């Protein structure tokens, strides 16, 4: 009886939307199985965490009130009075951090397996834009509780934007909604965090996923050279999807463990007329840039240190985004693989600067 109803519904839909080819496409799509297959799941984990972000974010919206006199108070209200409010906020913060982490893992695994090469250049570029947007999410969301740490991190972050030659001052004022970080900044960051970036992110993410679906999984070189009968694969649907879902379940458990046992804290309320407290630091994924800026001398060549730093990071970021268009081909006869070297150098720099940032 139940089966019959299901079939009826399917036929009704199929008649109108021609679903059968879509299902067949998913069933015929094969995912390669090899020793690096594990990296195929990292993007999926990031996607899952993004979904968690959207859901927990919507829940927070029900109680959060942006404003100098209400932001901090409403977050405290969520954490102390609302049923499970502490859990929702903690999940939102933790999954944000985990999402950025998995986006980084996903990106570097793509880099090292050279999956960005033709024909997947635009998948890489959209992925990089998603990373930038995710960091924008983190930066704008950090201010919203309006605590001391958030306030100074935003002052520093927007001031860095202000150091960009020519247009920096205008960017700073538009971001801050005035000369200083005030309630106007809070309103703007709120709009950016809950409306502008989500809209952009959804569009770019859809493109990214569309590209992946259209082109299928990237096959590493040695796998590509195998004879067709030696290539092990599993169907995308249901085998790969089910494994994805199982991993999502594991990630959800880790996330809940972290949120429950290491709940996210709320510092003292921001005071625009108090000295910056010791230990002002940005989120960990900005730490390597923050630390590099800290180490630069006041003047580099003819520029102020921070201007030189920003210029350097902008150029490096742009180069990284355009990796598929300049990447050096690895000649198998040569022992030295330049792209491997570049990737390891970038990771080593990020890790070293991050650790230094937390130690100093």
């Amino acid at each position, binding site marked *: 009886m139940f089966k019959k109803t299901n079939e009826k519904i399917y036929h009704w839909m199929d008649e109108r939307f021609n679903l059968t080819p879509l299902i067949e496409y998913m069933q015929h799509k094969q995912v390669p199985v090899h020793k690096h297959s594990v990296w195929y799941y990292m993007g999926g984990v990031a996607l899952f965490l993004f979904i968690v972000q959207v859901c927990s974010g919507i829940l927070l919206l029900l109680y959060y009130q942006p404003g100098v006199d209400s932001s901090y108070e409403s977050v405290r209200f969520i954490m102390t009075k609302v049923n499970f409010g502490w859990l929702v906020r903690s999940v939102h913060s933790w999954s944000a951090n985990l999402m950025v982490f998995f986006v980084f893992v996903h990106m570097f695994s793509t880099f090292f397996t050279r999956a960005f090469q033709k024909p997947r250049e635009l998948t890489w570029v959209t992925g990089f834009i998603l990373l930038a947007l995710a960091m924008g999410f983190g930066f704008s969301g950090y201010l919203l509780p309006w605590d001391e740490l958030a306030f100074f991190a935003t002052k520093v972050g927007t001031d860095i934007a202000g150091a960009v030659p020519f247009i920096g001052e*205008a960017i700073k004022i538009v971001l801050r909604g005035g000369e200083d970080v005030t309630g106007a900044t809070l309103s703007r960051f709120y709009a950016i965090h809950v409306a502008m970036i989500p809209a952009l992110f959804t569009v770019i993410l859809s493109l990214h996923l569309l590209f992946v679906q259209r082109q299928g999984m990237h096959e590493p070189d040695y796998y590509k050279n195998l004879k067709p009968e030696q290539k092990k694969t599993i169907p995308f649907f249901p085998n790969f999807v089910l494994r994805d879902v199982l991993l999502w379940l594991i990630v959800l458990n880790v996330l809940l463990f972290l949120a429950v046992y290491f709940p996210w804290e709320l510092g003292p309320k921001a005071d625009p007329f108090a*000295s*910056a407290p010791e230990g002002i630091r940005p989120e960990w994924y900005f730490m390597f840039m923050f630390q590099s800026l800290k180490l630069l001398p*006041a003047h580099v060549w003819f520029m102020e*240190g921070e201007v030189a730093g920003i210029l350097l990071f902008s150029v490096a970021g742009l180069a990284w985004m355009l990796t598929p268009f300049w990447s050096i081909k690895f000649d198998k006869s040569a022992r030295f693989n330049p792209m491997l070297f570049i990737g390891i150098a970038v990771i080593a720099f990020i890790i070293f600067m991050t650790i230094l940032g937390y130690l100093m």
Partner: protein
Amino acid sequence: MSTSRRKFINLLLGGGLLGWLGSIFYPVFSYLKPPPVPEANVNSVKAGPVADFPKNSGKIIKFGRKPVILIKMDTGELRAFSATCTHLDCIVQYRDDSKQIWCACHNGIYDLRGRNVSGPPPRPLDEFAVNIVNDEIIVSKMKEIG
């Protein structure tokens, strides 16, 4: 004849499109730029009685909408500087152990004349004049020289 007519039409349409885009984006970008908030021109503020302010300490006072750091040195001499770090806009503090002005954000250090002595700050802190009138501390903007 027909190509020049086509060119003319294309120019007209292209120009129209540009004008149309401009008429959409100009108001949007102008909207993003916050209107100036009228600011009372503060020239001096009272910072409390001298006796209430211990030696070898500093405090942040409101100078209009800007923070100013007021320091009383071991000798009892009072000095005031803009409290906004010239590096990245954090608010500095007085360190009673090293007797320096310190910014916690990036470890910038100024001496007690506001000069940037170490760390990333590129410029000294602006100095403010401190006067004592009837036992009350008055912090005011430095008179422009010349």
